[in-house]
Structure formats: C-alpha cells, structure tokens
C-alpha cells in the first residue's frame, strides 16, 4: 500500500506490505523488512534485525508525530493518510494563512486590526494560559484579512485567531 509523506519539507514515498507481523517497507529506493506488533493503540514495537524500538505514533493534524526514545519526528501525510483533512483545513483560501493558537487559553488582547500590515514575527494576539501571557506571532509578512477573536474570549487549542494574506 502506498503513502506520500512530507518530512521537513522533503517528500517521501512509502510502499508497505505485510505478511503476518512481518512488514516490508520501500521508501526512496531503500527497502527495510521489519517485525512489528501493537503494544497499545498508539504504541508499536518495531524490530529490525535484532534491534528493538518502541514507537509512539500520535495523530497530530495535519499529520502524525512519532516518538522513538528521546527523538521526535513530525510527518505530514499528503494522501491516503488520516491527516489529509487537517492539511487542507490549515491552508487558507488562496494565498491566505490561517494563524492558529497551539494551545487552549484566554485571549488577553488583540494587537492588530483588519487591514493592518504585519511583518514576520510580529505579534497579532496575546493569549494567556497557565499564568503565562503568550504573543501569537505572524509567521509571514502580509496584511491582516480577518481577526476572529476578541479580548476576554476563551479559545480551544488549534483555533484560528486571524487570517493573514
């Protein structure tokens, strides 16, 4: 079965097949055969040759986060995977970028208004969570098209606070 994965901007084609709990994975010309069993919903035990790895595969839209030992990998699934909706969702209409908050919290203040020009890293809103005030900054230069929150409002993690174009 084939999947397309994005990792650190790199595109990786995966082709996986299984027989019992032995899997064969082709990726970018390379082939790896491994033994894999499920420890729990999001935990897999992978054996390659005699090497053992416990992998925590956690769905983190628009993709997955995989933790192995003290390493963490973030993957985006471009097709076939469960992450596709999230992926589409995040990309605004046209060239617009939806600015979202990584965590739930309370909007303390809104620093910009619709129509304002913003430069990279400029603060758009301030969100308080766990007694810390956090400036949510624009990842790109542009113009504020929408502001979707008001001061005092409590918001969920992942909520869009503004759209920058």
């Amino acid at each position, binding site marked *: 079965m084939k999947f397309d994965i994005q990792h*650190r901007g790199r595109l990786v084609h995966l082709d996986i097949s299984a027989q019992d709990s*032995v899997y064969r994975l082709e990726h970018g010309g390379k082939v790896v055969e491994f033994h894999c069993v499920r420890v729990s919903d999001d935990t897999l035990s992978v*054996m390659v040759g005699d090497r053992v790895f416990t992998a925590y595969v956690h769905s983190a839209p628009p993709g997955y986060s995989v933790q192995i030992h003290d390493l963490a990998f973030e993957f985006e699934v471009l097709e076939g995977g469960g992450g596709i909706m999230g992926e589409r969702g995040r990309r605004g209409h046209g060239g617009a970028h939806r600015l979202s908050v*990584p*965590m739930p919290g309370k909007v303390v203040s809104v620093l910009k208004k619709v129509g304002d020009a913003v430069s990279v890293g400029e603060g758009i809103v301030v969100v308080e969570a766990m*007694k810390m005030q956090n400036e949510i900054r624009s990842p790109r230069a542009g113009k504020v098209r929408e502001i979707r929150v008001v001061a005092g409002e409590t918001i969920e993690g992942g909520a869009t606070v503004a759209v920058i174009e």
Partner: protein
Amino acid sequence: MKVPFKRILIANRGEIAVRVIRACREMGVEACVVYSDADRLSLHVLMADRAWPLGDPVSKHSYLDIDKILHAAEAMGCEAIHPGYGFLAENPEFARRVEEAGIAFVGPTGDCIAALGDKTAARQAARNAGVPVVPGAMTRVSPAEAERVAEEIGYPVLLKAAAGGGGKGMRIVRGREDLAEAFRTASSEAGAAFADASIYIEKFLENPHHIEVQVLFDNHGHGVYLGERECSVQRRYQKVIEETPSPFINDDVRTRMGELAVRLAGSVGYRNAGTVEFLVDADRNFYFLETNTRLQVEHPVTEMVTSIDLVKEQLRLAAGQRLGYGQSAIQPRGHSIECRIYAEDVENGFMPSPGRIVRLVQPSGGPGVRRDSGVYEGFTVPIYYDPLLAKLVTWGKDRSEAIDRMRRALHEYHVTGIKTTIPLAQMVLSNADFLAGSYSTSLLDHLTVRRRDGQHMEEIALAALAVRLLHERLTRTGLTTRRVPTMSPWKRFYRAEAMRKR
C-alpha cells in the same frame, strides 16, 4: 511516630497536594483537599480522603479565596492547614486568619511571613542578622524612584515583584531607556500573579549561582539547616533542574551559608520549614536573595540525601512537637538531582501546553528513582494553573551516578497529547558544562532546544508510521486487521541470519 493531627486540609492542588497526601497516609492523618470545577478529576482529589468544592476555576475565586478555604477547613473539621507552595502559602493574612480560626497553620506565623515574605523587610532582617545583601532599594519603588535608585547603584538592575517568586513580574533592565516599559510590564504581571503590583529594585549580578539553604525550626526556637540546593539551571528565573550538594561551593562556604541561614531564621522567630536563597558570584561571595517561608518545589533532593521527610517533619512541628535532634544529626549522603517536568512546548518558545494526556509512560522504577507527579494518563491538564506536571528525582552515591540514573529515567519517560519539557531536561543532562558541574544561571540563556531528530532513526519512524497508516486504511476500508500472530520459525530464522550478515 505520634499522630500530629486527626485531619488536615491541604489548600493546594497538583503534585504538591499529592505529596502532602502521601505524608498524611504515612502518619495516619486524614487528608482533606479543596478543588475548583477544573480539578474534579485531578489526582489530588482522587487520592484524598475528603474533598471540598471551590467552584470557579479562576484561582482568585478558588485557591486564592481565603474565605472559601477556611469554610472548607471548618466544614470538614480540619485541625491544620498545609498551604503547599504558591497560592496562599506566603500570604500573611491567610496564616493569621487560619490561626484566628483555631486551626494550626503549617508554616511560620503571619507576622513572620510578613517580615520575610516582603523582600524589602527581609533584606533588613538579613542585614541585622549579619547576612550580606545585594545592593538595591529597601522599599517598594515608584517608576520615578526606580530610575533614581538605578542611577545610584548602576545598571544593569533587576525589577522584581515585591510579593513575587517564580520569575513572574521580573525584568532585567540594562539601560535607563528601557526602565519605564519594563516597570510597567513587570508591575502588571505582578498584579495579575500576586494581587500586588508593587515592585522592588536591586543591582543585577551577571551570571550568578542561585543556591539556597533548607532550614527546619520547631515552635520552641530550635533549628537546623539541611544542606543547600544548587538551583542555577533556570530559564526566565524559573528553576528547571536542582541538585544537592552544589558542585560549585566548598564545605567552608556551605557551612557559613547554613549557619547564617539558621541565624537569620532564628532572629525572626521562624518556625517550620523554610528556605533562604542566596546569589553566589564567581568568587563564591554569597548575597542574601530572599526567603521562602514554605516548602519548596525542589524539597525532594534534600529528602533524598538527608533521609528526612520534610513534609512529615512539617506536620509534626506544626503540632508543636520538638525537633528532637541537632545539627550533628544532619549527615547528607550521596547526591540527588531533580528535573521539573512542565507542560510547555520547548520547540515553540516554551508556549504552555495544557490539554489531554493521551499516553503517559512515567519512569517506573529501579534503584534511585523517585517521582512526584500530579497527573495521570487520560487526565486533561487545565489551562488555569501552573504548568508543572511532575518532578523526576534521582539519587546516586555520587553526582555521576545520580546523573546516569536521571538519564536512564528520562529515557523511560514518554508523554503524548501535550508537549513537555522532557527534551530540555535531556539536553541539559547531556550538556558538557552541566556534566562538568561548572554552570551558572546563564547556562540556559543561549540554549535553543529542539527534539533531536536522528537521521539513523528516521527509517524506524517511517516504518512505524507506515504500519499505523496501513492499519488505519484497512480499518477505514472495512478490512479487518486480524490480531497478528508471532513470526513463523522460518521468518525468525531468516531475520536472525539476515541480521548476522550485517
């Protein structure tokens, strides 16, 4: 050990409330807690004998509401109140009102808290006790006064919340041009955090060590010090990793610090557990910083080396029992390190990361590992309170064994669903300066943390991901993924041989 109280109230939440509950269990004391609507499922409630609702999750209307706390204590028939740290722990009025209600306050008197909790008064007391202090204003200052004092003692200066702690309401100011703005933000942060916006200014020492001394006093004037804690691994004035003994100071400094700490505490009629914090410069000159008139977050490292259970001692002493031992009885053994695990995203500017803990694999044992956790798998970390989730503590016969065990324990630690500072701890535990024991409070200043992403591991990660995607696809397309059997012998053999050929 004689039971000090029949029943006490723990006026706190999270890991410290759990810590006190455990001490109560060991002493046969009934543990009562309070909880806001956001904490009905918090571990301290699940582990308590009794619990009283405080309603509104906002601290000001729950854990900081003295009337509600006292009502709960009386309603449940508590003989004493342990305040933990933070919240009302260093609020003199709270201590006074508790005692007025005929309930024992596990800590010093309100007057003593007022005298030491206010940094200005504390500095005066320190001076009187012959403890060196950092140059600065001895009073709460207005913006204008701050500017005058800054000129006097010279930049850089440090602005601090008079009521503060934990780095909230703190700003370094390197020049007059930044003073006004820094004062404004510090003051507003202080107001929000401690309901007291007043600010205090002092000379800022470059890259000092932050070392503190634990003291223990009974209500009869007898006190001892239990060694020091090196707390220099900080970011934004928030302690991240602590250890004892300090790899920086020698026995001579150690003893002088301890004796001065005891003298200071004795001079103000201190009782119960307390901590005297010092800044230590590169030449090992130490200056009084502040006193914490309550249990410290990092108290476990002291327990690990002294064999003294500080929380049980707190309860015993609060009941009026005598200390019963002198300084010579304190014989620290080995080395202990604590890593604080916060719900913060280290790769994203330490953004707070509340939310549901999907998977929690906490270091689960072996020698020399202790865990003080306030969370469990499936628990949703609320947005309202401090991000401290747990403390991981190790003990070793020497510093290197304590470090080896901390690295081993961190290796066993896995959290998904929320982000934690485990990667930061792992990075510090492999930082050359930390391993050499030669670090100051500047250690983390220029450190950018990101989860290591080993190329050699990427293939394994891809493999795990592919399996997950395959099974999700099969499930979605209705094909059942039958439980996979163990490998057939030929495959096992194949694998074995294939591997040998490498």
